[in-house]
Each structure stands twice: as C-alpha cells, then as structure tokens.
C-alpha cells in the first residue's frame, strides 16, 4: 500500500506549519500551535490562516501556496472534507503532512473514499502523509509536538532513548503521559492512525538507523503489509531491541478453514510467528508494555537470564524467585566463592543464598554491598532488589546508593518495593535515582524478563 522511502525529514524539520491555526483557545489547531511553541521548537513555526495576521504572536501565512519556501511538516487539523483540496494546494510547498483530522477510513464508506482521495492527492503532490486520524509526532529530540492533548492533560516526557510507535492515538497519549510521570525519557513517539501512507514499517526503517533511539516499542492492532513489516522489523531488531504489544488477539481465524491447521491458525498465532521471525519481543498487554518502557527507558539489555534476588523480606524473595521461574528466568544458586565472600562480610543471621535475605537488620550499606558483590564478575545478568521499608536502619539514601554507576554495577538493576503509604512515597526516590521501580514482584520480574529478551511464552 505504501511505497516506503525516507521519512527522516519528519524528525528533523526546519519548519512546521499548522494549517487552519485558530486564535481561539481550546480549538485543536490552537492547542497544537501552543504545544509546538511551548515545546521549544526552535525552527520556523508558521500558522496558516487567511483570516488572521498573526496567532500567538506568530505571523500567519494566508495559505501554504504563498509560502516562500518548502515547509517540512504541515499539520492539518481541518475538517476531513477539506483535506484533499488543501493537500492539492500544498503541492511543491510541503514535504510531509500530519493529518490529525478524523472522519476517514474509520468512519464508514464515505470516509474510505475520502481517504483514498487523500492518498491519491498526496502522491500526485509529492507529499508524504502521517495519519489521518492520528496524533502525529511527539519528538523529544527535534521538539516537534503535534499531539493535540493539552500539556496539563497529558505530560510530555523528557529526552531519552525510547521510541514508541502506535496506531492508536489515545494509546500513544496515555503511554506518553505515563512515561512523563515515571520520569522516563523518549526519543520519538509516532501515532500513525489510519496509516494511509506512512506506516509502522516506514517508521521502523527510520528508527533502525536513528542514533537517538536505543529501543523501540510498538502498540499494534494490525499491519497493512505483513511481509514488509517482518523485513523492516528484522532490520531494526538487528540494531536495537524491538518490542510489540499486539491487541485484537482473538478475532476470528480463518473461518472457512478446512484443515486443522487452518482452523487453529488465528490471526494472533501468525502475528506471533511474524514477531519471532522479525526478532521482535512480544509483550503481553498493557502491564508488560509499561514494564518494558520502564526497563528499557532506564536500563539496557541484559546479557542473559540469570537473576540475583536481593531482599530484606524472605517471603517476598521466594515469590520473586517463583515469578522468575514462570517467565523463564533463572534465579541460579550462589557460586561457592561468592557465598564465602558474602559470609565473610555479613552477620551469620543473614540468609546467604539466592534470594539473598538481609532480614530486618538490613541497612542501606548491606543492600548496596550485596548488589556490588553479586553483580561484579560473570555470575549474574540482572539484579532484582526487593526493598521492604520495615527495617529501621533503612534510610532515604538507599535508592541513590543503588543507582547504576561505573565501578558499582553496570548491569541492569530492577527494584520492587511493595507496601503502603510510606513505601509508595519512596517510589519517587528510586525514579530520581534512574531505577525502574515496581510495586509488585510480578511487575519487577516482567521487566527483568523483557530486558533478558522476552519471556519464553507458549
């Protein structure tokens, strides 16, 4: 359906125009212009409105046709029926369009025809299109923000290495908001909506060679061209981790199938086979999506599946070990020399094994020392630290002491800190220390499994 081709200009534009930029607060075009200005987009920002001399203090162009130069991105927040005409007039003046308007393929037969007209017009005019029916781009690198959700309703994350692709705009906005709240930075978030032109495969091709992106998470309902997706995702996953949540798993399979194979092969089984072929780690639902974002937003890929569990609550430690087992991670026993080393420094009533139980006598220092000693050398790939805040010696310095740093541990550390009021108010401290923190053992182990390359799911 799409022709491919380079879309990198969407992510390093010299100019962004907002078509139909309204001076009226609350209008979508007004929110977008405000967000772009507020995000600190430092290049040329151009409101397009024949009825206004200026909007928000920015000089208006009466129409795109009158632009003295080629504009990299034009955001169209105008009624669906006006889009084809506006695109036609943009010929030669615009490289890429972000069409946030709805009322296209998602809205019945008339919408489908209109969508086809958009594609045909864009092709003729030589304009690449993101959307329609999308939020477009939130880019922490280039500072482009076409999401028409006000900043007070959905927070904007800072800069980081995570990039997110989502067909669904509402999902992209919620994910963005959650990441902002967790203090996790992003590179690019693209909501591509109906994907009339630019789709997940185009984005994956761009992200594969995007130096700002260190990991990619896709939220996917369907793909237009499965084989192209497999190729693009394979290329991207050979460069950096690529993960995907597939929703709409239980749609009818091949209804008219005449063999067992045909009857069993639902859409989801084939998607899983495709993810596997493409080296994409499959994420099971929203919780795992969150876990993956936290894990890869703050830590890097784990070298393997061997987990060291460090806790001050024996019961919680055993629960984590069980969860590890269930997701295909190994809570391998302590090697003899490591056990000796720990016995030499810790009191006899600590339980020196894996899980390592520092008991109610735990201190900030004993936690930090445990992480440092077990994670140096080649015995383990990931540490899960389950810190329960009961022991009186624990202080608010603990999170900072566990933060990854050279000479301490450069392997991934995941924190689990369940509990009520007191514990919850400590979550922020772990976030500030750049540690992925979870309130349940299952959440922490899911994150560890994602870092280790995905659970072995059947």
């Amino acid at each position, binding site marked *: 359906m799409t022709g491919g081709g380079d879309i990198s200009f969407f992510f390093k534009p010299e100019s962004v125009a907002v078509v139909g930029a309204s001076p009226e607060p609350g209008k979508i075009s007004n929110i977008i212009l405000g967000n772009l200005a507020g995000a600190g987009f430092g290049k040329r920002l151009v409101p397009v409105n024949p009825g206004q001399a200026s909007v928000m203090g920015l000089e208006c162009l009466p129409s795109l046709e009158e632009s003295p130069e080629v504009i990299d991105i034009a955001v169209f927040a105008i009624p669906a029926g006006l889009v084809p005409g506006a695109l036609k007039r943009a010929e030669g003046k615009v490289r890429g369009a972000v069409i946030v308007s709805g009322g296209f393929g998602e809205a019945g037969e008339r919408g489908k025809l209109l969508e086809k007209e958009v594609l045909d017009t864009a092709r003729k005019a030589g304009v690449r299109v993101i959307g329609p029916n999308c939020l477009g781009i939130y880019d922490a690198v280039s500072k482009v923000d076409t999401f028409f959700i006000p900043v007070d309703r959905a927070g904007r994350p800072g800069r980081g290495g995570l990039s997110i692709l989502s067909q669904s705009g509402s999902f992209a906005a919620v994910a963005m908001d959650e990441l902002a709240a967790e203090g996790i930075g992003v590179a690019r978030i693209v909501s591509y909506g109906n994907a009339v032109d630019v789709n997940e495969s185009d984005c994956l091709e761009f992200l594969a060679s995007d130096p700002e992106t260190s990991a990619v998470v896709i939220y996917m309902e*369907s*793909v*237009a*061209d*499965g*084989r192209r997706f*497999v190729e693009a995702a394979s290329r991207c996953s050979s460069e950096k981790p690529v993960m995907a949540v597939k929703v709409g798993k239980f749609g009818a399979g*091949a209804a008219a*199938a*005449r*063999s*067992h*194979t*045909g009857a*069993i*092969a639902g859409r989801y*089984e*084939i*998607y*899983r*086979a*495709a993810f*596997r*072929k493409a080296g994409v780690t499959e994420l099971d639902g929203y919780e795992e999506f969150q876990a993956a974002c936290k894990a890869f937003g703050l830590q890097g890929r784990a070298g393997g599946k061997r987990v060291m569990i460090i806790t001050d609550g024996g019961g919680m430690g055993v629960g984590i070990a069980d969860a590890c087992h269930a997701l295909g991670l190994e809570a391998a026993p302590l090697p003899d020399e490591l056990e000796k080393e720990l016995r030499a420094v810790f009191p006899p009533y600590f339980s020196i094994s894996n899980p390592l139980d520092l008991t109610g006598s735990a201190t900030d220092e004993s936690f930090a020392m445990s992480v440092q000693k077990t994670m140096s050398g080649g015995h383990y790939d990931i540490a899960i630290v389950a810190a329960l805040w009961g022991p009186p010696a624990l202080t608010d310095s603990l999170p900072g002491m566990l933060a990854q740093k050279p000479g301490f541990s450069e392997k991934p550390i995941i924190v689990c800190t369940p509990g009520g009021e007191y514990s919850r108010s400590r979550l922020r401290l772990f976030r500030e220390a750049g540690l992925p923190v979870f309130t349940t053992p299952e959440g922490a182990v899911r994150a560890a499994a994602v870092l280790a390359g995905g659970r072995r799911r*059947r």
Partner: protein
Amino acid sequence: MAEKAAIEKIVKEAMSLGRKALVEPEAKAVINLASILVPRHRVVKDMAGAFEAASDIGYPVALKLVSPDMLHKSDIGGVALGIKDSKELEASWSRMVLSAAHEAPAAVIEGFIVEEMAGRGTEVIVGGIRDAQFGPAVMFGLGGVAVELLKDVSFRLAPVSREEALGMISEVKSFPLLTGFRGGKPRDLDAVAETIIKVGRIMDEVSAIKELEINPLVVYERGALAVDARAVLG
C-alpha cells in the same frame, strides 16, 4: 525446489476441474514430489483392481474412499484399517460404499486407495497455511487431542530453517512424547524437522496451495511416513 513445476501441474489440473481441494492421492503426490515419504498405495476403481493392488502391496492394507466432496472421510466411514485378507477387503468395500451412499449421497466417488498399513509410531501433524498479511506459515503439533482440544501447536512463517523447525518441535508441551516419555521410544526428530521444512518450501513456492496438512505424519525411531494428506486450493 526441483519439483515445483510438477507440483504446480497437479494443482492446476485440479483447479481446472473447478475443484477447491486436492484429493488424498493428489495431495500425497504433491508431498512425495517434495520428497516426503508416503506409504505404498494404489488408486483403484473397482473391486478387482482392489484385490490386485492388495495382493501386490501385501496384506494387511488400508482402504480409503477418494472423493473431492469429502475432505474428512473418516467421519463418514470412508476409512478401513488393518484389512487382513481378501474377504475382509470385500466386506470393507461393501460397507464403505453403503455408508457413503447413506451419509453423503451426492458425493462423487472417484475411486479407492489401497495402501500398505503403516507401522505404529507417534502421530504428529505438520500443516501449512497462507495468511493474507504474512504469507505462508507452517504449523506443528502432536496428533489427536493435543492439537484438536488443547491447541498445543507451534507456528513459524515459511520458509523455515532447520533450527526453526527443531524449535517448533521442542516448544510444544507434548514434546516429551517424542523423546521417550514413560518408556516410549525416542522418535526421529530430524525426520519431523525435514518434513516441516519441506511443507514450508511447498507453501513458499506454490502459491495456489492455500492450506496443506499432513495428518498424521507417523514418526518412527528412524524416519517418518505421511499417512494422510490434504490440500486446499485457491
């Protein structure tokens, strides 16, 4: 695949007759061209032909109905196994014709297969489907309840490598049944992997085949035999 043209010829002929599926002898010819082993068999039109085929092949034999209108022939009494002599063959034949006339009076009967009885082994299913978005894919599962009830199967996009095929076999829950569970004999995993690879190749190269299924593939300590096969065209 060396025999691609020959396979396509079989498929084209069936389609030119307006058929949407291959009957068992055709499906077996297709997989056999891809060098998947099938039991010795012969298609016959009448009782005399059946007697002759059975004595050539050697008792015990299986007798199966060939009809483009019955893809699930065992459901309507279209399969008789372990026929020991000519008397039993005659009885089976009569029963089958009566049953078919009763259960599916409109079905066209093209003939019968007389086939050597495959030895006992572990039954598995190897299938192929063509997906609208992702193209050809292959499926593996252990026979019977494991597939039909528990859906204990694995999928990969085709074509598949040897490593992928072995991965498909080992990832199903019922895998231990192939490696000597409860004193059973370990089965020839390489033969299964080879079959999966070949089905993947057929699916990848012969685009007119929409579904292909070997059910069962009987797996032995050495080797495997495709005892039944079907294909959907389109």
